[in-house]
Structure formats: C-alpha cells, structure tokens
C-alpha cells in the first residue's frame, strides 16, 4: 500500500456514490426503519493529489443527512440539480430527495415516484442523466424499464417488452443509448428515440449452473465514443467477460478470477473500471477482499487471471471472530487519484486505500 485509511460508519452501506464537490454519499440498508443517508466531505488528504502522511484533518465529515424509512439499496445523484434518487425494497418505487447543504444539514424527502407494482417485483435499479432534462432510468425487470422526467414526473420512455428477467443494473451510455444488464447475464441495448426497439446485444454466456451477473461500464475521457469502451461483466462464480459493444459477436476477453467457491450469493457483486488507468478494473462481493486486475494481458481463453493487487483490510477488521466474517458490499474508484479506491463492508467499515503498482509494470 501507499496509503490506507480505515473508518467506521455507524451502519454498513452497500453504496458509495460521488457527488459534486468531491462529496461521497453512503446509506444504510438495514432491515429496520431509520436508515440514514449521509453525504460526507472526505478529509483533505483524499482531495489533494499528493499523499500527506500526517494531516490535521484526517476525518470524513458528515455534511448533511437524511432519514429513510426503507433500506437504501441504490442511490444516484441527478446531475445539475440538487436532487438525488434512491430505491430499495419492498417495491420498485423510487424516493426523491433534496439536498441543500448551505441552508440545512438535513436531506429532505420529496414526493416519491410510484411505479406500477406487478407481482414478484423487487427493488428498482437506477441510473440518472440530465441531458434534455433531469431523467431517471429505472426498473427492476426487463419489461418494466422506463425513464421518468424527475421534475414533471412524466414518463418519457418505456422499453418494449423483451422478457421478464430481473435486471442487475442499467446505465446511460449517452443521452440516447441505454444499456441493460440482466441478472442472468444478457446485455440489451435500447435507443430512447425508438421505444419499440430493444436489441439483445450480448447473450448470456453458457454456464453449467445458474449464476448471477452484474456489469461495469466505463466513462472514458471526453470525446470518446461511449460504446467504444468495453463493458465488463462479472458472474457470481468469478467469471469475467469483456465485450466491445460495436463487435458483440465475440468476447474481447474472458477470464476467471480466483474467488472462493461456492460464492456467497450475488447480493453485493460489483465490478468497476478505473477511470484513470487504462484497462484496470476491480471486483468485489465474494468475501472480505477487493481484487484489482490489469485486463490488457487478457485473451478469450477463460484462463484464471492473477490480480495485480488484493485489498484484504476488511477481512481483518471485524470484532474478532464474532459472527460471519465481513463481506465487501461495494467499492468505487477515486475520480482523480488513479490508484485510490474506496470500499465498504457489511461490518460498517469504510476503507480508503492507495495501492502500489507492482514492479515491472507502469
């Protein structure tokens, strides 16, 4: 490590979202009522480019917070507004919140966005964009995907039915293109301007037993065509596929991560690309570790890949041996510092770490 900071949140979080002004947002997902949404100001050490060893302000500060009556499973800020959207069980409706840090330190609840609740619907996955207007893309299943304009609550897009599989995540590739990832592995593309078209981009890779998948998209540097960035998919068995959306007939790369088997479920599966390192991605959700891989050496053979770094901090955290070992719930990359990541685990720990590139590579 070059640097490691460990913090303890009052309640564990399964999301870490970046907000304007380098703020970080976390939220509780516990069963009972009284979950908190916290918008944090990171310590100055994390905001500067150079690492300072000792610094007076080494702590996160809670800038503002809100109280949610339901567990918060997903949270997304709405760009160019002071709003954020959350979702969580028991149904697929969305909660909208207003953040006004200058006036008050309470994140206020604004009226929710209701959705029609069919049977067996779980919580909605969400993505936001503010291109034509502040929009939120949401849905828990492939046939329930829609885009709602936040201010007017109008439905501006509904995806054509293409199956009733559950979704694991969705994203805006640009202001017109949507990418949907099904839990079973399928990737579908849709164009907002053509509501009837829902194209299966990549089918689910064949697998002997059912596994869950999640995806990670990369927002490349300005000017780059978003669909030129490869999409990574991670399965609950540790399989990783990289696909170029322009050439979906074949995998760019296929590899297997060394993960404990059987996986402890797909609840917290997370794969993400490094914003400032070419070809680097991180995975977590199998145990108390976060793996970092360099995909530039990968091919389509499906061989086991060796991580270039493993963060084990969360596994050692915990209150010595009481109960289950902590499970990493989410991780995210720092937007400017190339090798800094933030990760959270089920025991409430929040780690910020900066790893050293092993010798021989640059």
């Amino acid at each position: 490590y070059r640097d490691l900071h460990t913090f303890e949140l009052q309640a564990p979080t399964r999301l870490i979202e970046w907000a304007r002004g380098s703020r970080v947002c976390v939220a509780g997902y516990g069963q009972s009522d009284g979950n908190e949404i916290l918008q944090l100001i990171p310590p100055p050490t994390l905001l500067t480019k150079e690492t300072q060893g000792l610094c007076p302000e080494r702590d996160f500060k809670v800038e503002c917070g809100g109280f949610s009556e339901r567990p918060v499973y997903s949270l997304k800020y709405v760009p160019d507004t002071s709003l954020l959207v959350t979702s969580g069980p028991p149904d697929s409706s969305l909660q909208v919140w207003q953040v006004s840090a200058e006036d008050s330190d309470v994140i206020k609840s604004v009226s929710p966005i209701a959705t029609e609740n069919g049977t067996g619907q779980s919580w909605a996955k969400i993505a936001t964009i503010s291109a034509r207007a502040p929009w939120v893309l949401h849905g828990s299943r492939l046939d329930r995907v829609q885009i709602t304009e936040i201010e007017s609550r109008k439905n501006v897009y509904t995806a054509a039915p293409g199956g009733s599989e559950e979704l694991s995540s969705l994203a805006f590739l640009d202001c017109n293109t949507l990418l949907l990832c099904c839990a079973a592995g399928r990737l579908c593309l849709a164009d907002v301007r053509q509501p009837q078209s829902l194209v299966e981009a990549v089918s689910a890779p064949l697998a002997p037993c059912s596994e869950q998948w999640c995806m990670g998209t990369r927002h490349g540097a300005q000017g780059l065509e978003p669909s030129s960035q490869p999409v990574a998919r991670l399965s609950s068995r540790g399989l990783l596929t990289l696909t170029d959306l322009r050439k979906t007939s074949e995998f760019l790369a296929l590899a297997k991560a060394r993960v404990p088997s059987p996986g402890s479920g797909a609840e917290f599966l997370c794969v993400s690309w490094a914003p400032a390192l070419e070809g680097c991605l991180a995975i977590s959700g199998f145990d108390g570790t976060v793996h970092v891989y360099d995909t530039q050496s990968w091919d389509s053979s499906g061989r086991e890949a060796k991580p270039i770094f493993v963060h084990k901090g969360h596994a050692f955290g915990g209150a010595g041996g009481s109960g289950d070992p902590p499970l990493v719930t989410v991780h995210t990359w720092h937007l400017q510092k190339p090798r800094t990541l933030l990760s959270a685990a089920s025991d409430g720990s929040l780690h910020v770490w900066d790893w050293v590139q092993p010798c021989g590579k640059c």
Partner: protein
Amino acid sequence: AGQDVGRSCILVSLAGKNVMLDCGMHMGYNDDRRFPDFSYITQNGRLTDFLDCVIISHFHLDHCGALPYFSEMVGYDGPIYMTHPTKAICPILLEDYRKITVDKKGETNFFTSQMIKDCMKKVVAVHLHQTVQVDEELEIKAYYAGHVLGAAMFQIKVGCESVVYTGDYNMTPDRHLGAAWIDKCRPDLLISESTYATTIRDSKRCRERDFLKKVHETVERGGKVLIPVFALGRAQELCILLETFWERMNLKAPIYFSTGLTEKANHYYKLFITWTNQKIRKTFVQRNMFEFKHIKAFDRAFADNPGPMVVFATPGMLHAGQSLQIFRKWAGNEKNMVIMPGYCVQGTVGHKILSGQRKLEMEGRQILEVKMQVEYMSFSAHADAKGIMQLIRQAEPRNVLLVHGEAKKMEFLKQKIEQEFHVSCYMPANGETTTILTNPCIPVDISLGLLKRETAIGPLPDAKKPKLMHGTLLMKDNSFRLVSPEQALKELGLAEHQLRFTCRVHVQDPRKEHETVLRVYNHLKGILKDYSVQHLPDGSITVESILIQATAHSEDQGTKVLLVSWTYQDEELGSYLTSLLKKGLPQSTP
C-alpha cells in the same frame, strides 16, 4: 474559531439553585474577549450570592483558564468543585499560561500567581461517584469521562430534578485512559459536547501507524524529531506509543522528555493511577507504565548531541520556552522533523510553520530558515455522533442539550436524537438561554388506614394499572400526606358539613295529600324494586335516605307539591327521583 478552540462556560438554574459549569478561556483572543462575559450572570455583579457553586470538568484551559480571573478579579468566594487530579494539575497549567502571557508577551490585565493560589484555596476536591452535598438541597456527583486525566462528567441534583453535564468526554478507551461511563440516572437534562459529532474518524491504528512511520523514518536517517506538547494528556499517550514501538523494533535512539512541567505531570499520573484504565492498573503491579525504559529526562545540553533522537518538549505551540529553543537549534537541518500535536493559536511560531511559513523573524530581527520537515497530527479524544448516542442510551435523559463551538447547522443530529430516543433536543447559541420544562414528582405519604380502605373498594387492583383513590391532601410544614376525610377533619379540628338539597315537584292531583302520597309510594315501589322504599307513619316516603313529603299547593288545591330532599352523598339518586317524579304519576294506580 476552530474546532479545538473555544471557551466553555454554562450557567444552569435548577429549582432555584444556580450552578456555573466550567470557566474556560478562549486561546484565540489576546484581550478581554478571551474571558467569558460574566455580566450575563447577574447585573449587580454579586456573584457569590447568586451562584451556589462552580464546577470544573477538567484541566484544559478552555474549561478552567478563566477561573482565577473569575474568582479573584471579578469576585467569587463560593465553593468550586473539581476532581482530585484536576485540582492538582489545574494550577500548574494556569501558572504556565500566566507566565507566558505576562512575562513573555507583557500583558497587564491578567491574573497573578497569588490569584491562582487564592483561587485554588476555594476548591473542594471530589471523588468519583461520591455524592457531595453543596447545601441542604443541592448535591453533585462526578462520573468518569475519559478524555484526559481527571476529567469528569457531573450530575447536579436538587430534590428529584437533575442535570448531567458532560464536559469533554470520550466513549472509546485509549492507551492510558478508559471510556466515559454513567449509570441510568435518568436526568431531566443531559448537556453534551457536540463539536465532533459530525466527524467519522480515521481509525486510531492508522493515525498511530503514520505517526510511528514518520518518527522511524527520521530517526533511521539520523535526524532529530521534536514533538512540542501541552505537557499533559496526549503527551503520555504518545510516550506509551513510542515506548512500545521502540521495544518491539529494538530501537536504540534516545527519547527525551523535557524537564519542568512534564516531570511533574508524570509524577501526578503515577499518583492518580486509579484514574487510568484497567490495562495500566493491571500492569502497574509488574511494571509502572509511566516509568519508561526508553524515555529519559532531557537536559538542555543534549540538544547539541550528534545523532538521532526524539524529544518531547513544552510548550505545545512553540511560542516560548524549551521547545522553541530546541526548534531554533534544529530548524536548519532538513533531516530533522517537528511534529505539531494539535491546534496552534495565531501568532505563535507553531501556527506560522503550519501555515507554510519557512522564514521566521525571531527576536532581534534574526531570520530563521526552517528546513526541517513540519508535520501535523491530531489525536484528540472527543465523542463523535456514535459516542453521543451511546451516552444518551446509558443515561436515559428526558431532554438533551448540545453545546457546540460555532453556530453550526446540526439539524440532522437533533432529528436523529429526537427520533431514536423520543426526547427533545436543544442546541442554543452562545449567550442564548434555553428553558426546559420538567415534570417533577412530588412524593406524598398515604395513611395506612386510607390505603387499606380504598384498596378494599371496587374490583381487585390490577398491578399494572393505576388505581384511582379518594382522600384528602394535607400540606403542612413541607410535608404532604394523604388521609381519609374523617381523619383530616379530626386533625384540623373541623366539623363535617352536611349538605341537603330540596326540590319541589308539582303534581296534578285533586285528591287529598295522603292519597297522593300513597300513589307516589306505590309508583316508586313498583319502579325502584332494588331500593328500600318505605311509607312512614308520619306520611312521608323514604327511598334509601331520601325523604319525600307531599303538601297541598297554597293557591291551587288541585296541585300537590312534593318536597324531595336528599343529602349530597345521594345526589345521583336524588336527581333521578326528581326527574322521575317530574314525568308525572301514572293514571291507573289503585
């Protein structure tokens, strides 16, 4: 002002008693603004009459720095309460600060050494968990607060109303102190520090690791490390940390602790070993944790010795004294390092170098070039939001009041406390008065006879539900008693009044009076089957104790007037009878 700096001084009025909590000095100001404005307390300035006592929570100057000014210059002769370690260490810190302010800075409007001594004569030292009677009605009790040696949280009680003041406290133990603890005393109000409530702290392990790394690196390359400290508190913590590290890594470089103030401090820590945490007390028998193997007393000459070393020196902000002397000697060498322990007041050398200044003007217009590395660390031990919630959970107050340095927006924490504990939470600004309504319980003695009688009436009492009883409340000479009405009358020498109501009911009946009476009697007998209805020889009817008589109307023979008369106790039956009779008599009566 910054988070570490402020002055604490809170005035509480409880059941007619006035208590002052802490008397701090603001280190950021150089004029009278550094002292609290005592004119807030009372306009006529006679503080000794107005205040019942003053309580000091711990020896940090922002909690006790203005005490000599308050007691000797403004004027207060009443009792001042603090724990034993605080009483022992306070005067040392006060004298040190006085020396620097007056001797070095040449200030005039400041308290003198004699004033400090006179002030301390008014101090009454208390033990933990000892109930101290300030006067007949006011009592106080100290609880362990962690934070620094001798820091305490105080419970102030008058009758059954109480307030708990936390001062500065810490809910997590550290290397030499335990965590704060209080019992479920259920005070009407808990006053808590909340300056660090919004921070989520970096783990101690990481801070310590970084600190040790820096020290180690410097020493390994032959450099010298200067750590200016405030003498007490964190200094001991860091000593233990370095001692353990040196032992583990088998390091040979010397560590020094500068003389004077800090030696006395170590001496006091040893004396008050019971105030430290469990682990230290346990190992004390085998080895005194404050007797260090690797840490020795410093001599001025050592600063010129070649080779690596670590020196703890006072004062903490490099504003004068030994630490500044050493700093001047070592500043020019880039292999050396100075690690500043905490907040530095503006104007001090410490503040300047932390702001990045590398050329300092010293006395005699000499310029000092600072080439040594400047680092900053903060190991402050205050409760964060989680800690505050823990304390509230332990004490179970009915109301919470949060004290904070600046007028920060703390709406979120206020809501959090209110939602979780269903209590009211207040956060007044400096100079603001908050009034909290309490529901005091007043104990009343009930006479045995009354208790027995009342519990015998009605259904069997349910243990969980309140039972309504009737009695007479006698208030005499500050005692409250509940007795039966008869006993009350007897005791007070009063006779019981009898109230009798009479009502006239007009009934149309041309017959003779005795016939009307008979009609009424038969009518009532038929209806009131469960009651005793009697026809007396003198022509009147009784229903239980109610009397009914009939007379002819003076002007109209066809109308009879029924007099219905009853006592207050039979009010209900009486009104019922009256309304019944008003409805008229049935025609067909034999």
